[in-house]
């Protein structure tokens, strides 16, 4: 039963990674850049939600929406100011700019909100009649504890994945997005506004990062300006694991990464959990060099 418990917890954590990875993968698919500042947008979203709910006493849902709004604007502004002028530049230059952006966001957060850790409120809890807070549903006489956060994470992740699949597959904007990721010049000739499409991708990715930030902090309550970097790196790993540029791949990669991390921590060694996650990634990439669901690109000779 404890295995099932760990598996479910892993899926909960993995769902958060998957949501971040979806943002990563979409931005990578269209802009062909590793957006290192993505992890820090998670942190900004979490801070916005924290202040909205704790300081101003707004309901959690409003807090999340506000965080999404702020992150969307932030994502689009970053793209316009820092990445758009580098569209023609070599990819390493864009990478360094993204790293600079990541430093900038972390240090700005440190100045604005001080490095002291903030304790994120517990959103997903019910109050028992005796006043204690309950955060999980005990099943089978308490042998299995189903945490509310896990349920919300998995549900949110599945909904987002389905919505994105529908969006990129069926809507006009989504098709434009896929066209741009295939060939920007050809898309432009077909009358697609490439700049607007890229902005839209950054907007969606950043909004997802805000949701992920709130969900991540609901499980790991300590919020500091560098909170975003580790989940950012993990989600990046998840996106590559599943095949970067692929939406189902990011979903699968995220879930698997979370499950492996929790199981490795529970059964092998807590200290080595991260090392095991990365080792699994390396082995996977050796067997499938384009990730689990990535399409291998044929080389032009």
């Amino acid at each position, binding site marked *: 039963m404890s295995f099932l418990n760990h598996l479910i917890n892993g899926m909960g954590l993995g769902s958060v990674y998957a949501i971040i990875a979806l943002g990563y993968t979409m931005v990578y698919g269209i802009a062909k850049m590793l957006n290192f500042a993505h992890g820090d947008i998670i942190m900004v979203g979490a801070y916005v939600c924290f202040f909205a709910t704790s300081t101003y006493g707004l309901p959690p849902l409003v807090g999340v929406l506000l965080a999404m709004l702020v992150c969307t604007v932030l994502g689009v502004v970053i793209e316009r100011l820092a990445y758009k002028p580098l569209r023609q530049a070599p990819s390493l230059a864009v990478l360094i*700019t993204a*790293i600079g952006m990541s*430093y900038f966001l972390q240090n700005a957060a440190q100045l604005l909100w001080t490095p002291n850790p903030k304790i994120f409120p517990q959103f997903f809890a019910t109050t028992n009649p005796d006043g204690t807070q309950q955060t999980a549903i005990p099943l089978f006489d308490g042998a299995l504890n189903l945490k509310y956060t896990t349920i919300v994470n998995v549900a949110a992740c599945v909904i987002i994945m389905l919505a994105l699949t529908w969006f990129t597959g069926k809507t006009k904007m989504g098709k434009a997005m896929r066209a741009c990721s295939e060939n920007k010049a050809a898309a432009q000739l077909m009358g697609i506004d490439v700049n607007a499409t890229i902005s839209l991708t950054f907007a969606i990715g950043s909004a997802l990062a805000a949701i992920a930030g709130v969900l991540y902090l609901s499980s790991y309550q300590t919020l500091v300006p560098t909170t975003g970097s580790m989940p950012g790196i993990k989600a990046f790993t998840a996106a590559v694991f599943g095949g970067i540029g692929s939406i189902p791949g990011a979903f699968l990669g995220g879930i698997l990464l979370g499950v492996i991390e929790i199981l490795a921590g529970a059964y092998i060694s807590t*200290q080595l959990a991260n090392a095991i996650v990365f080792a699994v990634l390396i082995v996977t990439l*050796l067997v499938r060099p384009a990730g689990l669901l990535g399409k291998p690109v044929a080389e032009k000779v």
Partner: protein
Amino acid sequence: MKKTLKLSKTSKGNFATYGMVILAYAILQFLGSNAVREGGLLSPTLRGQLVPICAYVVMALSLNLTVGILGELSLGHAGFMSVGAFSGTIAAIALQNTIPAGGPRLLIAMVIGAAFATVAGILIGIPVLRLNGDYLAIVTLAFGEIIKSLITNLYVGKDANGLHFSFITNNMRLGEGGQMLLNGPMGINGINKISTFTAGFVLILIALFVIFNLVNSRSGRAIMALRDNRIAAESVGIPVTKYKMMAFVTSAALAGSAGALFALGQNSLISTKFDFNTSILVLVFVVLGGLGRMWGSIIAAAALTILPEALRQFSDYRMLVYAIVLILVMLATNNPTLKGFFAKLFRKPEEVETGKGGEGK
């Protein structure tokens, strides 16, 4: 007689780089000498920074070999530095009684650091170099994180019987007079600082010598051919794996000796010092200095190590300013108008400042 003295353009450039390093060393040595020290030309903070600057310069040079010459993006270079730092420091502490003199002990530490990093480079290079582009980058990142985790859980102790190792939990029973060298997450404490600026300077010269000679050899040309077009190079019979490994392992070995130099200039050492951020920091030196340009890496590494110190008067804002400077420099160096302006100014065919990215094509 005149003919033999005529140097090629590359050799001139290389000698200029050597000259620049020697000149910088001479000036800094003079400024740091006792006669001038009273004048306060070289602040104590800057003097303390000299050894780390040398270590970072060697790191940048070695990463430039991987990123600039081999053309593969590595995000885990700090891992090799870490291997070199810990193996070198443990060797230096273990040999403290056998070889009391600092200089030879530092030399042995750097050689051992380089040796261990070479082994790590070979082990990592075999799987990593089969991949391309961003996938290669993420695997190097993964290896960097794995090295960090492994060293965090490693315990090393010394007693009369020799060295003892244990992993994850510290379950060793040290004999009489035993001493813990590496204490897992607590790292190494009480390192006796034996690194000197002169040793750092010599290491920079060695690194330059190794890299220039590799780059301007037959192997170096093969490596650059792989960078420019792997398929074409392969089709004319260049063994891909061999030359990729050559560049990657050389780069790892240099990073290992830089790690030993860095560590032996510190009081204490923990494995989290060599994390992803350190790898990125070195990558920033390389990209800002110009890919494949060794003198650029030297200047960028030295300037960007001093910059946060120089910005200390802005205290809280210094890292923010650093980030903004980084973004603005990237935007400016890639601005087509500015580039055209500089190209006109210097009357040279326009060269791409940052070269080709890590994506292969």
